[in-house]
């Protein structure tokens, strides 16, 4: 990495796949798509609200990790949101219609579409700006809406593979052969036989790890260790749970930019839970899947199904005495990185810390943490694109890199598979002498069998 690279000169590095609709009369197509979305959703009311409330105080910008790195106005959340809100006002409101005729405000141009596609993917969608906005303007939502429109136009980052992909593709009901290897690893570690449940009806939880499990040849050693640790926790606390073929697949990328992908994901989660007669959906160390499940399962008829994160489960298991990590097992200074998807709403902030305090001798906090923590730079699906690594580590991840450096920690813990990937690249590109591990990966070292 070239340390002399200036932040503002770094392009996001994101390349787009395009469809015939994406070239030619882009502005017209953008408006067609926007109109279709407004017709069938309740987003118009929300845009009316946010369009009236913005005060241009600049607070969102001063609290945005990308803007703080570049100082480029294109990275200002309220300016970016305004790109979409101005289009909305001009083309979809009465006042915009009148203003256009009286004041001659110009219509949307193809260059506006280009600017939206360029800037909306420089945003991590971490919602820190939303949290800090005194008027409550939801810049994260506006970013999502812009990406949804672009996606329907066929303008999707190439790294997301397809505009919309069904999140779970597995059709086989066969128990995976690699489960015996998992059971063998558990036996070696805990000294007794295990039978990991698969397609078990009537269990309390259906468990969706959300990340690659490693045992099937997909994913890296860290993900394999994380999966082993998550299963260890469930097995050693006597959890009533089950896997299914679809629950073992990692979640897709469509949720970052398309409502249909989000809805399909939520339906699959609910469908699997109902099919197995489970009362709860348990999500592993994948913060994006956890947030999607929490937010959207209710929208597709899953209100009666509770969504729980493995972090909450493990923290509760410690409180109830079912899990007793060995104190002091980790003596190095560790720091916990809050994944935006689960921490920004205040949902999961304390449970991971409560877990870590039971076996880590020295847990330190970033200067800004919890709900207010800075994004690692990989959020919003950006980490899936290796082509934008320079942008992610030198620009979007700069605040986090500075926090890590000043903490003096030797181990950084991230309870999200995507954060871990981003943090590993961040640590490498900023030459930080730190190890990046998953929370359960580390907890595994402190586990003893109960009973």
């Amino acid at each position, binding site marked *: 990495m070239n340390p002399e690279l200036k932040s503002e000169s770094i392009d996001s590095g994101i390349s787009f796949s395009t469809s015939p609709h994406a070239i030619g009369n882009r502005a017209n197509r953008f408006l067609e798509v926007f109109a279709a979305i407004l*017709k069938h959703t309740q987003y118009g*009311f929300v845009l009316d*609200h946010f369009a009236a409330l913005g005060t241009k105080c*600049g*607070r969102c910008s001063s609290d945005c990790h990308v803007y703080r790195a570049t100082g480029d*106005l294109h990275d200002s959340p309220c300016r970016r949101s305004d790109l979409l809100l101005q289009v909305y006002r001009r083309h979809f409101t009465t006042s915009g219609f009148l203003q256009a005729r009286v004041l001659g405000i110009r219509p949307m141009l193809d260059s506006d579409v280009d600017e939206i596609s360029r800037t909306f993917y420089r945003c991590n969608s971490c919602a820190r700006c939303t949290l*800090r906005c005194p008027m409550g303007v939801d810049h994260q939502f506006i970013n999502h809406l812009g990406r949804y429109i672009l996606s329907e136009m066929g303008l999707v980052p190439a790294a997301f593979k397809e505009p919309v992909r069904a999140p779970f593709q597995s059709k086989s009901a066969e128990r995976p052969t690699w489960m015996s290897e998992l059971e063998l690893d558990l036996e070696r570690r805990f000294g007794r036989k295990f039978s990991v449940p698969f397609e078990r009806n009537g269990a309390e939880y259906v468990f969706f790890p959300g990340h690659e499990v490693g045992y099937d040849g997909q994913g890296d050693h860290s993900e394999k260790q994380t999966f082993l640790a998550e299963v260890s926790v469930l097995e050693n606390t006597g959890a009533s749970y089950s896997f299914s073929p679809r629950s073992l697949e990692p979640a897709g990328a469509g949720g970052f930019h398309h409502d249909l992908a989000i809805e399909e994901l939520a339906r699959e989660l609910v469908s699997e839970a109902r099919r197995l007669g489970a009362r709860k959906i348990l999500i592993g160390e994948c913060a994006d899947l956890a947030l999607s499940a929490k937010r959207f399962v209710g*929208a597709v*008829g899953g209100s009666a199904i509770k969504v729980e994160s493995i972090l909450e489960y493990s923290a509760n298991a410690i409180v109830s005495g079912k899990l007793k990590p060995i104190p002091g097992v980790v003596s190095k200074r560790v720091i916990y990185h809050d994944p935006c998807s689960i921490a920004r709403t205040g949902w999961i902030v304390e449970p991971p810390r409560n877990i870590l305090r039971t076996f880590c001798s020295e847990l330190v906090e970033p200067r800004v943490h919890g709900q207010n923590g800075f994004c690692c730079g990989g959020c919003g699906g950006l980490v899936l694109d290796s082509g934008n690594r320079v942008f992610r580590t030198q620009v979007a991840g700069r605040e986090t890199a500075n926090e890590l450096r000043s903490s003096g920690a030797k181990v950084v813990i991230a309870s999200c598979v995507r954060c871990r990937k981003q943090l590993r690249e961040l640590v490498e590109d900023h030459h930080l002498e730190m190890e990046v591990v998953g929370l359960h990966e580390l907890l595994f070292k402190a586990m003893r069998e109960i009973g």
Partner: protein
Amino acid sequence: MDGFMELVRGPLFRFAFTIAVVGLAAQAFQSAAGLLFAIIRAGDKRVDVSGILWRTADRLNPFYYLSGGSSRMLYTISSILFHIGVVTVPIFYEGHIRLWERALDVSWPALPASAADGLTLLTIATGSLLIILRLGNGEARKTSRIQDWVLTPFLVFAFAMGYLLGHPGMSPFGLSTTIVIHVLLAEVLLMIAPFTKIVHCVMLPFARFASEWTWRLVPGAAAHVSRTLGKENQR
């Protein structure tokens, strides 16, 4: 001048006040109706009212923005103090209350004169500081619209004229002129309130509800969008 002053203080004020009340009420009603519409269409109709109200109160607590690593502390503090003055002085200044009493026979407790004076000067000072801070901050300066530049000076000037009305010896203008300027400025602000960001005074309480329900998917909406765009076979 007397006739003009009577017009300004009488029919014109009533007209401006009516525009403000009706306009702001309409905006509030529109917000509430929009929320209701959104929740009716949403697939998940569960409403954590107490949670949302807590979050709303949290964000309306001005000191919330002083924590969490904010880097615009001076702007935040100035804004808090500015809003305290802008809200309390027009409502609790004794001179204004006497006008209501004369017109409608209603009154309420007033601020002590010294407190009203202090708050007025505070509003003028912090309002001026906000203008300077907007000028001095790149992102605020470059994203500001006409109303962002005009509203705060309008308010500051209105408060300055109000202060001079209370201390006529200090005013370089005659009493009548000071009255007319002060009342006209207030009337302009009242009339534009529903159409500018001043509307946040009635819409802000709905902001967290809007943000919460923004993410409530309408089941099947995305499929309808695809169908409308003729893309249903492309999935």
